[in-house]
């Protein structure tokens, strides 16, 4: 009886629901007032750019003249004709696949290791591991360490040890550039996600570990799997998003170390390619097409990771 009347009145319920939320919105107008300054700026500088970027990607636009609609031409050129873009995609993919997961795991592993240290040692360790990611352009010091002549630190050590017999051009030989870049990016990979992990470990109830021990958790791996990971899920997701973000947005490091443009485009990433077309050649339509593809890939990655992490520890 009740069920039937519910189905019968579904439409009116839906309508009343709508008017209910309208009423609620009116009652809560002060909330919108508080949200307004942020929301306006956020829409102007984050959402609007994404929408216009999607629009420009279907046009030919150089800022001076009016954009002209060209349909999918930018995308077709990008995928079928632009060989440098394919190199950039390959490089970004390699960097993302290598540094994303490895950086993520390193962050987690070291947060886990330092968790059991005495408090003051932990404080020092957090600074040591986190400092590279906030140290501005400190990565430029790697251009001295990896310098191509014998004054370069790495070259001199390897020469000293007799491993190489002539200095190697670490930053201009296409064979080495990617390896060097990956090392430097890994060095900087313990960022916000790492901090989140450290704090997450601290927030776990200590008596759960003791109880786990009494219940028969025999070593640190079992403890990690059965107690720690399930309590860390929200941090794991946040850390994953942060590490995809940094892995896909790599552009400053290659430009500072390998030069811009780099030898044979060996250090070109999607974002440097975008920078090249956007800010050096002013082909905004083409650059927007690159940006749009990057958005799509990142949103897809976020979906995949959210799904994967929802299964952790269950």
């Amino acid at each position: 009886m009740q069920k039937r009347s519910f189905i019968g009145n579904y439409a009116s319920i839906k309508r009343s629901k709508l008017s209910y939320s309208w009423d609620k919105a009116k009652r809560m107008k002060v909330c919108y007032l508080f949200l307004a300054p942020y929301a306006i700026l956020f829409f102007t500088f984050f959402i609007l750019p994404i929408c216009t970027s999607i629009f420009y990607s279907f046009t030919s636009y150089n800022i001076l003249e009016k954009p002209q609609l060209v349909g999918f031409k930018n995308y077709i050129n990008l995928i079928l004709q632009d060989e440098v873009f394919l190199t950039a995609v390959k490089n970004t993919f390699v960097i993302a696949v290598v540094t994303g997961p490895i950086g993520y795991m390193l962050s987690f592993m070291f947060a886990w290791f330092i968790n059991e240290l005495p408090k003051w040692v932990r404080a020092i360790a957090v600074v040591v591991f986190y400092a590279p990611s906030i140290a501005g352009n400190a990565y430029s010091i790697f251009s001295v360490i990896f310098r191509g002549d014998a004054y370069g630190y790495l070259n001199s050590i390897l020469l000293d040890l007799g491993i190489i017999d002539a200095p190697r051009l670490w930053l201009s030989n296409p064979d080495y550039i990617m390896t060097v870049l990956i090392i430097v990016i890994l060095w900087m990979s313990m960022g916000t996600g790492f901090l989140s992990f450290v704090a997450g470990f601290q927030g776990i109830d200590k008596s759960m570990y003791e109880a786990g021990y009494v219940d028969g958790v025999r070593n640190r791996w079992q403890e990690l799997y059965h107690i720690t990971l399930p309590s860390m899920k929200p941090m794991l997701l946040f850390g994953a998003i942060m590490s995809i973000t940094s892995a896909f947005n790599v552009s400053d490091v290659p430009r500072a170390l390998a030069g811009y443009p780099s030898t044979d485009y060996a250090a070109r990433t999607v974002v440097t390619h975008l920078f090249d077309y956007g800010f050096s050649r002013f082909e905004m339509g083409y650059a927007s097409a690159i940006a749009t593809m990057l958005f799509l890939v990142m949103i897809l990655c976020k979906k995949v990771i959210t799904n994967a992490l929802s299964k952790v520890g269950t």
Partner: protein
Amino acid sequence: MSEKNLTRYVGTMKTSETAKIPGELLLEESRAVFMSHRGAQVASFALNDIAKLRHTRHGGLRATLLINLTSGEEYSFTLERGVPAYDYINRHWETRPHEEKNRADELRRLAELRGERIEKPQKLSEGRKKKFRIAAVILILFTVALDTGLVAKLFDYILTGVSYFVRILTPARNAVRDAFVYYESSNLAKTIANLVLIVAIFVLLSFSFKRRHPNRSVGGDLGIYFLLVFMGCLMVFPLVFAVSSSLKPLDELFRFPPTVFPRHPTFDNFSDLLVTMGQSWVPFSRYLVNTFAITFFGTFGHLIIASMAAFVLAKYDFPGGKTFFGIVTTALMFSGYVTGIPNYVIMNKLGMIDTYWALLLPAFAAPIGLFMMKQFMEGLPTALIEAAHIDGAGEFRIFWSIVMPNVKPAWLTVIIFSVQSLWGTSASTVIYSEAKKTLVYALQQIQAGGIARTGQAAAVTVVVMIVPIIIFIFSQSRILETMASSGIKD
């Protein structure tokens, strides 16, 4: 009650299934009193009257304490800093029965009833801890002595003295001398020796401070310590190298083989930097003031605007709020370059190119600050806000005088993320008047000056990196407190 030994814990007391009274739990020596915000004394009992004490944690330091008194009364307090309150009561509750301490103890008791025995985590005796610490100090002194060459000299003197009397020891003395000469000349030997010594010091110190878990293997611990020290050295090396390069005089910068530490450290590179900057047609101080102003105003505005939005998103359920936050979480993923081109076009339309608004306004709306703030504010007890509502405070009063003072740890987190990005901004795409350029832009020009400016470039790197690192060092504990609530719940 004297104010002196009093500790206050803000939170709520549950009086029935639905009603809660906001107020403060005051703990003094051996008594507990719950005062409501209106000033009424709602509950008062001696800690020794407690029969049973339990607590459930809600993330961070928040916890609910469930207290049963011997007289049969039952209290439930949800406190902002419930974990320290629980610790306090546990410490001052003299009649506490031991087995009630936690679940582990309960399980242990049950196991004993079954006739099994489960050992407790063993604690090192104070005497052994002291020995470990003394050994660590000796090792530290030894490492310093080894690296400064004192050990070599000492051995040389002793062996020379002894071999003066016992001729047969002369070859031994020479061998030691050669060994140290080799050691001095080989970077590899030095690195390895220092690494081993540092690990040893680390192991000794941590054994002396830490309570060992019984289900940890010693081998595993040693492996972890070694990995930590090794990776720590690798991580810190480039930063140390940057600092030491900035202190090297020119001839040492191009020395073969290159050294890590300067033989004759000088501040020449920094003073040269000032000279070079002094010659540019915009004075150095101008760049500095620009960057300071951008960093200060950008961070300040971001803090206020993002906190206002975070407050309503965290504490009110209004149509569209959740969707908006979802969009912000997705926007965490987009870097400045990706939105850079359309942003330039938009700013151009708004007439903001070559003004600081082009830097400040996007910085005000940075997603990471809102995200952190909102997650942290969710931990604030809703009762606090409800109580203020009942007292007739307006939304803005509540935000300004109740919410903001209670989220101070989150301020620092928002500040460090904002300072880090604004301090490092070169703004080359939106600002083109020389007088408006930022410090980092000017410094990058110097860095681009090629090989002749290597020393100054290193000095530049140090100037740019030191500010965020120092802020982080001083605000670390607060930042970690905020990050505890950073997770994304799906």
